[in-house]
């Protein structure tokens, strides 16, 4: 397939459809509305379901229902709308339902603005909803990756029976870049896919089995039973931590004087600054967590080269992932943070300046 120039919001929608998503429920919000509009146009063409829900809350609960049928289902929103889904997400995680949730982040808190930001890292990775649960969280940094992650997200969701979030931002949603799609699943493949969940999901009792009774549920009124359930969830999360760490190494070497850590959109800008400094003979490495949960703690620790005197974390927020980096660094080298907020995206020049100052220290 040739590359197509496409908006991130549309590319991820297209990729989701190609991966077998035939159910999508959402509520409009800037800067993700092209995603819902793309689905509105395209779902009827693939005999899929698009419903504009009455609210983000209704949307996530429609997802709960459809995911309870083992079908590939997705919702999307942007920061304030994602906050409204917190109860629903906790339910979905508790009931172990596979689904994909996209957050095209914007500036906050509150109504904030509609420009790109990374202020929802904590919410996505630490559980903005109540109780002990985890989302698998993928953080794209280009339109191509955004699209690829749609496919990955559905596979991960099915594999672990766990909700997966793609944590993008307004820039990735609104920008166009060339994108190449993976081959689309055939109608037959799509029709068959849910069967991997047949043993637990809602489905017609075709052979009239008297014992056919599946419960989609997160309630266990007996604390000892709930304890067991939560412990099982923990085991699953441990498994995910073992298998699903994904990160990019950029210019890592034993010469690195500084190690940068950045994710998503922010990482692009940091790379740019690193390139500039490289031209000036400075060695700076970058670890970019691709999955921000599970988080590459050990991998970051290992990336601290012998000459590294500082880890520098750059985010489009007031400092969130930096906490995880501090845990990873475990006091080996100091961890510094710098960020921009409110929907303002830092420039390569600004990052370069920060790094230069740090090099001089």
């Amino acid at each position, binding site marked *: 397939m040739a590359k197509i120039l496409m908006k991130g919001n549309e590319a991820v929608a297209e990729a989701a459809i190609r991966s077998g998503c035939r159910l999508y429920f959402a509520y409009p919000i800037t800067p993700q509305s092209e995603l819902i509009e793309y689905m509105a146009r395209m779902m009827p063409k693939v005999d899929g379901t698009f419903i504009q829900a*009455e609210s983000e809350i209704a949307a996530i*609960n429609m997802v709960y*229902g*459809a995911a*309870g049928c083992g079908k590939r289902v997705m919702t999307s929103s942007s920061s304030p709308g994602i906050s409204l889904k917190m109860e629903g997400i906790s339910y979905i995680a508790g009931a172990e339902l596979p689904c994909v949730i996209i957050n095209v982040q914007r500036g906050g808190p509150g109504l904030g603005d509609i420009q790109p930001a990374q202020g929802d890292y904590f919410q996505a990775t630490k559980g903005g909803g109540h109780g002990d649960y985890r989302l698998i969280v993928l953080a794209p940094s280009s339109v191509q990756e955004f699209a690829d992650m749609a496919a990955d997200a559905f596979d991960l969701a099915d594999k672990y029976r766990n909700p997966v979030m793609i944590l993008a931002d307004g820039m990735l949603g609104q920008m166009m870049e060339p994108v190449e799609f993976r081959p689309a699943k055939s109608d037959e493949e799509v029709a068959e896919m849910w069967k991997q969940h047949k043993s637990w999901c809602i489905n017609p009792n075709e052979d009239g089995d008297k014992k056919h009774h599946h*419960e989609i549920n997160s309630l266990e009124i007996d604390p000892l039973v709930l304890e067991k359930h939560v412990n099982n969830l923990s085991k699953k999360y441990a498994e995910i931590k073992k298998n699903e760490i994904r990160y990019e190494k950029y210019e890592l070497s034993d010469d690195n004087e500084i190690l940068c850590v950045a994710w998503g959109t922010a990482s692009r800008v940091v790379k740019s600054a690193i390139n500039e400094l490289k031209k000036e003979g400075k060695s700076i490495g970058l670890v970019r967590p691709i999955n921000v949960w599970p988080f590459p703690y050990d991998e970051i620790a290992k990336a601290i080269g012998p000459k590294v005197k500082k880890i520098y974390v750059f985010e489009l927020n007031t400092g969130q992932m930096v906490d995880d980096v501090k845990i990873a660094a475990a006091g080996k080298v100091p961890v510094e943070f710098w960020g921009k907020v409110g929907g303002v995206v830092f420039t390569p020049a600004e990052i370069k300046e920060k790094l230069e100052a740090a090099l001089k220290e």
Partner: protein
Amino acid sequence: MEIIATRPESLTQTPFTYCPGCLHGVAHRLIAEAIDEHGLINKMAGVAPVGCSVFAYKFFNMDMAEAAHGRAPAVATGIKRARPDMHVFTYQGDGDLAAIGTAEIVHAANRGEHISVFFVNNAIYGMTGGQMAPTTLPDMKTTTSPYGRNTDDIGFPIRVCELLATLIAPYYIERVSLLSPADILKAKKAVNKAIQYNKEGRGFTFVEFISTCPTNWGMDPIKSRDWAKENMLPFFKTGCYRDKGKGVE
């Protein structure tokens, strides 16, 4: 001798967790019977609410989902859209449906979602210990209206059938009572009609049951029925508010 009445197949063997004399059980049985009678047990999925009937997912003998408080109609929408070959119902209390779930029921009804909604109105939050519901009667005392529901301050009970009947899409809306054997027999007809229309793919069907909460009303089961007859029925008029199958619009 032949068995002429016994537990319907569409109920599991699990005993209900309701208080003695609580009419949730009657509503359950009527729904289960209708599913049996229409031969839908293998194609039906139900959605339980949060409320005393939260454990309905254990009581109905089919695939069931337990929804977040108030969101059963949205969950049912998700199920029905994912599985158009199945039939879907929700079961909800008055706090669940008429308070926190107001938007979800209005919009599922307005979309004409092809589901059946069974709504048990007992004028109180049973599960959480007797707080005021949107359907709590004027001057009625509950743990959060300890001096009686003051209509000057917080208004009157919501009549859900009347409200939903202002929407165009719903196919069938009826209010029935569970307060006497005769009423239950009438209620059975309404439930059967809802399930029949559901089977036929007609659209959104809705049955409200006027019920009781002996425990939180602080009355024995028989007294609570009488109280409901005297106090709820005059306000919540039973009857058919919409039946497109019969031209009642």
